[in-house]
Structure formats: C-alpha cells, structure tokens
C-alpha cells in the first residue's frame, strides 16, 4: 500500500477564514431565498393584506390620538406599518427556524455543524444571514407602502436600519432557540399557535397600548412585557429618526439572551446530545 501523503494545511484558522465562512453562509441563504420566490411573495403579501384590507377597514373604527413618535394625528395605516414590518421579521425569524428544523431532518444541518469553525460563530452567521433576508423583505414592503401614503421622513429609511438589524437578530435568535427544541417538522404548527399569533396580537402592533389598557389592564401588562411590543416600538421610533431607549434595551437584552440560549441549545454536549439519530441510524 502506498503511503504518499498529499500536502495538508495545518495553519490555524484566521480572520480571513471567518470572513469567508460568513460570506459563504450569507451567499447560501441569498441563493435559497432567490430559489424560493413564493417565500418572498408570501412574505410581502401577508403584511400588504393587513395594510390594504384590515387597516382600510378599521380606519374609521380606531382613532389614533397624538402619541410619540408622531407629532400629529395619523391614519391607522401609518400606525400599523411598524407593526407589519415587525410581523415580516417575526415570520422571517420563524421561517428561518423552520428551515433549520428541515435542514436537521434532511441532514443538511450536519454540513454546517461539522465545520471546524466555532459553533457559536456558525450560528451567529446563520442569524445574520436570516436578518439580511428579512431586510430585503422589509424594504420591499416600505417601497410598496410609500405608494399607499405611508411615507416616513426620508432619513427614517436610514435610521430604521440599525433597529431592523437588531430586531431581526432578536426574532431570528428566538426562532433558532425554538428550532433547537422542535423534534419534528410536523410540530412546527405549534409555533404558529403558541408563538407567532400570541406575540403579534398581544403587542402594540395593531393598537396602541393606552387603548389596550382601557379595555383590559391585564392584557395591557401582557403586552407591555411582550418583547415583540418593544420590537414594534423600536422600529416605530427609528422610522421617525427617534430612539425609544426602553425598547432598545429590551430588544438588545432579549437578543443577547435568546442568542446565548440558542448557542447553548446547539452545543453538542447539551441540546443535540439528548437526541438519538434519525430513523434507521444508530
């Protein structure tokens, strides 16, 4: 038997290797996004239905008083636009977690997890990639909404970007954390019922909290402690070139907690170690 060895690389992985990896994961997510045009269309149609139909119908029913960051009376469509942006990111975060469960079931996830780069870095790259995809969807929505007279100040399109990145990371990391606990793709329907709908409806996305308080003080506190409310408010203020510091702190804190939770959950010695291999493998 021949024992000729090819030249192998033993250099330590450096900064360039990390950047290459990040680029690769971003590129793959972008390719997947382009291949799934239906995903892009449905991600846009959902908030647009709310905007064009729901908001138009409720315009006459729900009056919005002057509340920060707005300096004048606004139409209901204008009020719910930040909530719909957050909705796009919420669905995108859950969609990412769905694709992680799918990847895990199909085996693709193993390709990622056997990379020599640290697992926390790989998961953060996945989060960033998901966030970038959500940004494309949000700006497409904002463009369409502009024709519907939802026109924040021009600077708002820029100042909302950091808020969108942070909120995208928070909702993506929440999705990632959830995906680590879901054993089968079929169980994902529960996420819709127990995560997406309660988070969205028990928030300030559709109605201001002062109106909720009038109706039900208990629901008001539920909404107040819902991190999604703070995602909505962070985006709402940033769209008008303002900072809601409380929301910023809550969203940043939740992002840190969810991300650390997801990293721990995907640690081989903890989360994944509890599961037996998929059917047929032992």
């Amino acid at each position, binding site marked *: 038997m021949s024992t000729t060895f090819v030249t*192998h690389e033993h250099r330590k992985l450096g900064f360039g290797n990390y950047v290459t990896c990040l680029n690769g994961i971003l590129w793959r997510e972008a390719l997947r996004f382009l291949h799934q045009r239906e995903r892009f269309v449905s991600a846009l149609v959902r908030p647009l239905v709310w905007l064009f139909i729901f908001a138009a119908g409720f315009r006459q029913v729900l009056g919005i008083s002057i509340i920060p960051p707005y300096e004048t009376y606004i139409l209901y469509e204008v009020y719910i636009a930040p909530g719909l942006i957050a909705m796009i990111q919420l669905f995108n975060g859950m969609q990412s977690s769905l694709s992680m469960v799918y990847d895990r079931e199909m*085996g693709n996830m193993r390709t990622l997890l056997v990379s020599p780069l640290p697992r926390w870095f790989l998961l953060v790259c996945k989060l960033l990639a998901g966030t970038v995809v959500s940004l494309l969807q949000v700006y497409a929505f904002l463009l369409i909404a502009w024709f519907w007279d939802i026109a924040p100040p021009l600077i708002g399109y820029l100042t909302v970007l950091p808020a969108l990145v942070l909120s995208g990371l928070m909702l993506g990391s929440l999705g990632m954390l959830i995906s680590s606990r879901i054993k089968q793709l079929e169980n994902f329907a529960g996420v819709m019922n127990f995560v997406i709908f309660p988070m969205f409806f028990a928030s300030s996305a559709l109605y201001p909290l002062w109106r909720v308080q009038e109706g039900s003080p208990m629901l008001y506190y539920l909404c107040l402690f819902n991190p999604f409310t703070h995602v909505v408010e962070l985006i709402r203020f940033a769209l008008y070139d303002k900072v809601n510091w409380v929301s910023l702190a809550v969203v940043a804190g939740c992002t840190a907690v969810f991300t650390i939770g997801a990293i721990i959950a995907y640690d081989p010695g903890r989360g*994944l170690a509890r599961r037996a*291999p998929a059917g047929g493998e032992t």
Partner: protein
Amino acid sequence: MTTIDTSRPEQIARDAPEPTSVPAVTLALSVAGISHCYGRRRALSDVSFGVAPASFTALVGLNGAGKSTLIALITRLFGIQAGRISVFGHDISDTPGDALRLLGVVFQPRTLDLDLSVMQNLLYHAALQGIARREARLRGDEVIARIGLADRVNSRVRDLSGGQMRRLEIARALLHRPRLLLLDEATVGLDVQARADILAHVRTLVAERGIGVLWATHLFDEIAESDDLVVLHGGHVLAQGSVTQILGETGAPNFDTAFRSMTEAADRRGRPS
C-alpha cells in the same frame, strides 16, 4: 477475540504499515473508552479502537449496533459523555476545530442541498471550511472532474442519480483535503454497480492519497481481506483486527459466518463479550 487489545488502540498504529510523514504513534483516529446513552438506553459501551493513517478500516455492525452514534460522536454532533476521541492527536472535545479540519465525513442521510447546483454545494462546503472562493473553485473543478461530473457542474443536485449524489458527497468531504475520511453506510440504497464504483473510489483514495478511512457498513460483501475490521454489536466492540485474524480466532470459513457466531455467542451470554 483477536490478538489486538481493544483497550489500547495505539497498538494498531504499531502494527500498521508505517507511513512516511506521520509518526507511528499518531493514529488517524483514536477512540478510547467511549460510552453513550440516550436517556436510559445505552447505545455504546466502553468502545475503543483506532484507525491507522492510510488504512481502510471497516466498522461492521447490524442496524442498531451504534455505528451512527459513534460517527456523530467523532464528528462532534453529539457531546462525549464518557471516553475520549482524537483525530491525529487532536482531542475532539478540547480542540474540536483542529480535529474537524482533518476530518471529511459522508453521513448516512444525504446532506447535500438539493436546490443548489453541484458547484454551489462544493463552494458552500468550502466556505464552511474557511477556504477562499477562488481556491474553492479550483479545487471544486478538480474534484468534479475526478468524480466524472464535469458535464453536470451547473446541474441542480436534485437532478442527479443516487450514485452521483454519493460521489459528490465524497468529493465534497475531500475538498478541504482531510487526512481521515468517515463514511457512514455510504452505499445504502444504491445499485450494485454504483456501490462497487464508490467502494473502489474510496479504496483508491487510501492507496493513492494516503487517506485513512473508517467505513461503517452492515454489508459484508464490502469487506476486503486486507481491511482492518471493528465489529460492533449492541454498542460493544466484539472484535477488531484484520479479516484474517478474525477468521483465525473464530475458525469460520468466511466473515459472514464469523460475524454470526460472534454475535450469537454474545446474545446468548446476554451481553457481548
């Protein structure tokens, strides 16, 4: 049992032909005292063996023997509960990055992205290994030509046959130039010709490129006389050594008979020896 002491995997390295550039004491893969449980169910019990560099080692066992669990532990998909695993001296728990860089893996389920093209799958894998795009493309062209898929470079993977997908997975596992290749039931579900082609391809890698191979299988016709064997049954190592050694120890005319007598004896005793 063969003459090789399962509790001292480094002995295999001394018995194996000495490679030119790797010290004999450094095993391509060292598995020492590995045990693993899923809840209360024990999947592996005190498993120890080694794979020498530039050797073909078959990890043989029936379905449920613990082969895939072992592969998941070696590749760090699961955390190690007891024992140690090292790849060319790099402990998979302490220095996972160094160990994983030397490892190429073909898992039992397909792990290709079906919606990406042949080249895109390779480039994605290369990026995960930190290989720059230009270099990755060069290596991709090289491995695609070697596996005979040059005319399918832009085809979506879902349009490939099962055999072509497996060849692509092997090519992908070699893209970062690992020194140890793990293949978990790599030929399951393929036709006879595709199985033979893949097995021949992997044996060529051992002979020509000096890559150590751990080939997990339950198909005994894939075993050659020159192979090292590790027989896994019920999560225990029943025997390890060359085919000749195992046949000599059991007195069986072929490996099929030897395997049956070993496993039946272990089952009769209620626990493997």
